[in-house]
């Protein structure tokens, strides 16, 4: 939403702008009587209250006194959570798959890679924005896809509000492929991907030191410049790898380039090296339900990956890295619910309910340094609040109310319009095209 960031060139570690004078924000709202889940890993609280003022959470929990003049929303029998933060998505970059002109995820013919910034391409009117919003997704990490390089470009964090300004944080991270995809983008092997990465970072160092070698440089100047914030720790380096030793290789980068701030993405075999990931204190955004050796870099894949990593102390979030569900982010809650199911499977490691919600709300926010702003109902966070018609991790539950920055959002979308046009029981006096 524009208000909070208007006119501010935000860098990740700058103090984020707070507050606004918008009249819509002046109101104090109390959602009462609901089962409230904070999104910080704690278990839900029955008969809880959430208090929102000026687009921010004032408090959430049980037995809260209501401020005077509060507008009360009775949510008895409902569940209230922070909005889902899509951990790895293309929301707004793609209107429809398989239609190149409506798909800005990748730029296979571009001379630039690391310099690509997805923010200007994100369309807040993409149908997916409204559909995912109606599914309870309020923020999303939006990533470009790599082609012809290990560098995919710079991703953004967006809100899914029904307004023209989706970008919450542009250039939040650089996405790099260092597994099978990286090998492909670097000419055919992981070893060449490593060379490409190191050369790129060296060229970025040179350019930062004012010594860019125009003739000898492999990277376009813009690409080298785009990598400078990574070296300075001002932009996250998000690395997609799946195989255990690829993960360890990424952790090694910290030794070589001490300034960089890493996020691991994928990490299907992360459970086998979980202690080392935890020791390195590198957050992980992993697919929840990958359990097939779809490629040789994930032969050890199991649905217990997330649970085992968390049990080992890894800061773990859920994001759907590939597969069909990657463009259906509202299924994140189902994926999280499935990890709760594992608690009853002998030999498997799942998550508690509270941990599972955390993995799709505050954990992805924390992974990219935004846990102080979004992803939970802790005091001071942006009021991205969802009232659900039941247990949000359960199959088939949906939001009844979605708030972003304290503003109640419309839940209608192209799907609800199609549904209403074709719902059973209407007599056809005219073709369907005349129906609203």
């Amino acid at each position, binding site marked *: 939403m524009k208000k909070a960031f208007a006119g501010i060139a935000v860098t990740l570690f700058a103090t984020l702008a707070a507050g606004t004078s918008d009249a819509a924000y002046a109101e104090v709202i109390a959602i009462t009587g609901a089962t409230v889940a904070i999104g910080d890993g704690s278990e839900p609280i029955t008969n809880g209250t959430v208090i929102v003022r000026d687009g921010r959470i004032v408090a959430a929990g049980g037995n809260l006194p209501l401020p005077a003049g509060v507008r009360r929303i009775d949510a008895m029998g409902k569940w209230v959570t922070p909005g889902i933060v899509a951990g790895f998505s293309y929301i707004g970059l793609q*209107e*429809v*798959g*398989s*239609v190149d002109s409506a798909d800005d995820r990748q730029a296979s013919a571009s001379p630039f890679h690391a310099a690509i910034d997805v923010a200007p391409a994100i369309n807040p009117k993409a*149908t*997916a924005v409204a*559909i995912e919003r109606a599914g309870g997704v309020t923020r999303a990490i939006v990533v470009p896809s790599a082609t012809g390089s290990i560098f995919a470009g710079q991703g953004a964090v967006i809100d899914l509000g029904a307004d023209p300004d989706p970008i919450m944080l542009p250039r939040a991270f650089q996405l790099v492929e260092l597994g099978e995809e990286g090998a492909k983008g670097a000419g055919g092997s992981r070893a060449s991907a490593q060379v490409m990465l190191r050369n790129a970072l060296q060229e970025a160092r040179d350019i930062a030191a004012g010594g860019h070698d125009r003739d000898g440089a492999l990277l376009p100047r813009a690409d080298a410049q785009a990598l400078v914030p990574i070296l300075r720790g001002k932009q996250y380096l998000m690395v997609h790898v799946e195989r*255990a030793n690829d993960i360890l290789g990424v952790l090694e980068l910290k030794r070589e380039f001490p300034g960089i701030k890493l996020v691991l993405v994928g990490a299907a*075999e992360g459970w*086998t090296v979980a202690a080392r990931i935890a020791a390195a204190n590198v957050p992980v955004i992993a697919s929840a*339900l*990958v*359990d*097939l*050796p*779809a*490629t*040789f870099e994930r*032969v*050890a*894949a*199991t*649905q*217990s990956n997330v649970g085992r990593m968390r049990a080992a102390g890894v800061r773990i979030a859920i994001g759907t890295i590939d*597969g*069909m*569900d990657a*463009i*259906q982010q*509202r*299924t994140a809650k*189902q994926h999280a*619910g*499935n990890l*709760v*199911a*594992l608690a*009853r*499977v*002998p*030999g*498997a490691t799942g998550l508690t309910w509270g941990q599972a919600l955390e993995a799709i709300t505050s954990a992805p926010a924390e992974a990219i340094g935004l846990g102080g702003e979004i992803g939970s109902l802790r005091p001071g966070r942006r009021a991205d609040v969802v009232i659900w018609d039941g247990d949000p*991790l*359960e*199959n*088939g*539950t*949906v939001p009844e109310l979605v708030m972003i920055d304290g503003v109640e959002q419309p839940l209608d979308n192209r*799907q609800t319009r*199609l*549904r209403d046009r*074709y*719902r*059973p029981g209407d007599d056809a006096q005219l073709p*369907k095209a005349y129906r609203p």
Partner: protein
Amino acid sequence: MFVRSLLALAAAALTGCTASTPPLESAPKPAAFPHDPYPSTYKAYPGRRTALVGATVLDGEGKRIEQGTVIFADGRIEAIGGPDTAIPAEALRIDARGKWVTPGIIDMHSHLGNVPSPSTGNDGNEMSGPVHPDVWAEHSVWPQDPGFSRALANGGVTTLQILPGSADLFGGRSVTLKNVPATTVQGMKFPGAPYGLKMACGENPKRVYGNRNQMPGSRMGNMALNRATWARAAEYKRKWEKYEKAGGEPPSRDIGLDTLRDALDGKILVHNHCYRADDMAQVIDMSREFGYKVAAFHHAVEAYKIADLLSVNGICSALWSDWYGFKMEAYDGIPENMAIVYAAGGCVVVHSDDANGIQRLYQEAAKAVAAGRRIGVDISKEVAWTWLSLNPAKAIGIADRTGSLAPGKMADVVLWNGDPFSVYTRPEKVWIDGAMLFDVTDPKRRPVSDFELGQPGEGDVK
């Protein structure tokens, strides 16, 4: 009736065994070619008489029994009933209180084995031309695909139809498998299941071949080539029928047209990948033009727009609960699709087309039920389970043998550790033909494919 069909099968098998010594007859009969040249070698694994007692039972035919009992022996369902059901003394009695029992899930749209994990290169689509009724999916299926075990252990899937892909207008023959680990596909083949014919309309064939500047390059090209092919099939059928009646010189054999002839005769069931309502309507007219029947439209994201038409024509819709938007013809997908098709009296089937989705078909049904409820279409859990077992069994022609817990049917049974419409529920035990092939409490009852041996994570819960 069931017993009779079993006997008929047994008789056919015997005939097959003795066929090497043909009976001497006076009049020369036209030579017939074998119709089952790659026969199933599957035999049920040993099981013991088992009684599941005290469960909530969904019988797969739309009935629900509380505190129910399901008894099976010798690979067959023996009895299903309430708490007063008599339990034979020697039966293994499993306390299923608080748990649920259902028929095994049947996924009639799977590519396990022919699009396996990891990839074996392309084994799913014969993309050398748009008309390939001559290829058979079973000749591509890699039985070591670890996806089969995931579908069993996490998904409660006991039977699957493996289809060729959708690059071609005529993609080839499908094969129906029992989800039983085996070294050969013959060891998985569902004995006596009819074959299916995979067809595809819409974007895929025209994209694949249009990009090569080849026909079909458009939807009208799709239809033209389809019609030309069916016309050839009709002629082939006529020639063979004439020869089989009158004898003489046999027509030359065409492996692809054999399949299409059987499809025209209703012996092979037509499974048509088709998303858009208008595309489906064209296919229905084409099926009338050439005299065949479509068993099911697969993917059918716009089935809700023509729910009445599909219902009137008795065509099943194999659906996802909420996938949409991944290509133009999937743009109009809505979560209420299944409910609207159901409300029009149509045959709903939950399908996967996906090695991950097949592990959660029961959850897809649950989401669709919830979406229906929100538009005033109430679907009970017992009815919704027909979408997962009996309806797909009907659409692939095996409903007389499996797909519900009716006595005499194959004991393809799942014991769930709770309500299977809940995300928190998983299969606890799975039986196929009465043999326990998965037990969540016993690592020895968990299949590990050859591929997984010696690899990181071997034998792990998945």
